[in-house]
């Protein structure tokens, strides 16, 4: 059973990475700053990979991912701070409510072809932000105080779950149906694939994990404010996916890591950050318009299956 074998290889690698980093944290080689950066990287990878499922795999151009991040952030904060329930439950609730939001936005818009989705998701994200801005229960513009509960371990666990679910989904008949929609919607339809259904499914799974990321995000700082979930945040997530190479999961992961590191070190120079960001984008578009990884996966470099690679990495 080579697929099961692959799963254990993946888990082994995951555990090794975890152990090394945990060791570095406990021996205080990594200070709080580094640990924080690691948590932010994990959150950003979750965001990148969840949007990759919608854009890279299913080909639906959603540009309001920060809206689901915001839903997750606020819902989880309400669950822990107002209802005083445990953090894992808050994360789960964040995912579920974000998924419901995804369903509500997705069903009417994903039926339509073309650019409606981009406009609708953008509008949705703005509406969400404005709603939170105007609800006093969650602090309005001043924001909501949240206790710092997110740590490296829980972020890493959430990241692993996200990767496993999305990779397994992608490498199945369901993921293939989504890729078929991206490749040629009319043909997918003609092959008996319920295209609306799969677009909604991909969108809802993507929203679910964006919600989880929101829960982690909210509990990683001491405060959440509507201003953190504006268009620029959606844009940041979009860049992870585009820079990595549309259709490549490893590309999305890689660019989430790189860009998080770049922006963390440029935190104090917001303008410089934007300039460097733009420069990177321009350079990539000039020299690698297909993104860092194109449609390939990291695993392609180690196996001979490259031609057969169904975007999304190996079977798990």
């Amino acid at each position, binding site marked *: 059973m080579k697929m099961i074998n692959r799963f254990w290889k993946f888990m082994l690698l995951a555990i090794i990475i975890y152990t090394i980093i945990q060791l570095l944290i406990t021996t205080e080689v990594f200070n709080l700053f580094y640990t924080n950066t690691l948590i932010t990287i994990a959150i950003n990878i979750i965001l990148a990979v969840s949007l990759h499922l919608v854009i890279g795999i299913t080909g639906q151009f959603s540009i309001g991912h920060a809206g689901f991040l915001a839903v997750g952030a606020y819902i989880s904060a309400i669950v822990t701070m107002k209802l005083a329930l445990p953090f894992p439950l808050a994360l789960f609730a964040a995912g579920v409510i974000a998924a419901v939001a995804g369903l509500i936005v997705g069903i009417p818009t994903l039926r339509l072809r073309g650019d409606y989705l981009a406009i609708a998701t953008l509008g949705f994200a703005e509406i969400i932000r404005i709603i939170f801005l105007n609800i006093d229960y969650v602090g309005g513009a001043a924001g909501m105080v949240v206790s710092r509960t997110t740590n490296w371990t829980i972020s890493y666990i959430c990241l692993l779950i996200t990767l496993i679910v999305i990779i397994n989904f992608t490498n*199945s008949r369901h993921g293939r149906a989504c890729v078929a929609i991206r490749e040629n919607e009319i043909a997918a339809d003609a092959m008996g694939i319920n295209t609306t259904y799969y677009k909604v499914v991909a969108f809802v799974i993507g929203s679910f994990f964006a919600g989880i990321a929101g829960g982690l995000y909210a509990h990683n700082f001491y405060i959440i404010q509507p201003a953190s979930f504006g268009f620029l945040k959606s844009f940041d997530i979009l860049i992870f996916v585009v820079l990595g190479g549309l259709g490549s999961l490893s590309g999305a992961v890689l660019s989430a890591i790189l860009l998080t590191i770049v922006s963390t070190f440029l935190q104090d120079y917001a303008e410089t950050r934007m300039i460097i960001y733009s420069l990177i984008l321009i350079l990539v578009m000039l020299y690698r318009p297909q993104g860092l990884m194109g449609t390939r996966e990291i695993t392609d470099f180690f196996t001979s299956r490259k031609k057969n690679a169904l975007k999304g990495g190996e079977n798990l």
Partner: protein
Amino acid sequence: MSTNPLLHIQNVGIRFGGLRAVANFTLKLNQGELIGLIGPNGAGKTTVFNLLTGVYAPTEGEIFFNGERINGLPPYKVTRKGISRTFQNIRLFNELSVLDNVKIAYHSLAKHSIFSSIFRFPKHFSGEKEMEEKSIEFLKIFHLDHVKEEKAKNLPYGQQRRLEIARALAAGPKLLLLDEPAAGMNPQETKELMELISFIRNEFNLTILLIEHDMKLVMGVCEKISVLDHGQLIAHGTPEEIRKHPKVIEAYLGEEVGEEHA
């Protein structure tokens, strides 16, 4: 025998704004028949396919398949009822492997759920394994198994056409619609294609409706031919009758219908 046709198109028509692309079109197909649909450019042939497969809903008339009314159904449901098609301008899943292209067509015949795939239950593995085996079987029939790992877009043109037919068959149709399958093929490829069509028809017990510009192919392979012009059915009959039909000759404006040279 003609009491229960597999496909019964009754007075179907569609308007695009002011243009009546197809009007009052009637056609019966019995189980096992191979019928050709011909007509000059823009006559409405592809539109008939689009009406049959649910891409467009007819503005008039009705379509019965297997005794069931299917007009107005979305395309994926029509496919699941047993009608599948190829496209005039090839529509493959370009970035995917040849094998994955066929697997996608097999999608709706597989059973394992999203849940079982995400959690990698045994059902997922057995389901995927079956899809893979069936798809490879199809590729073997079409002599495409040696390129199964190749991206569809990298195949030579003739093989792309064949892959599209393989993919349409993998969806498990009773009725196969082929939209100019020989377009752009050289005479050798066309000849092979004709043999392939006869072969799959017997092998899979298919009923076929074939749009074709290559008269020789149509006349050679079809029992009956329908001729469309300006959205109207102008003739229906055996190749012999069609060849002599004055309206057909007129529609083709001197184009020599069924001209037979080696």
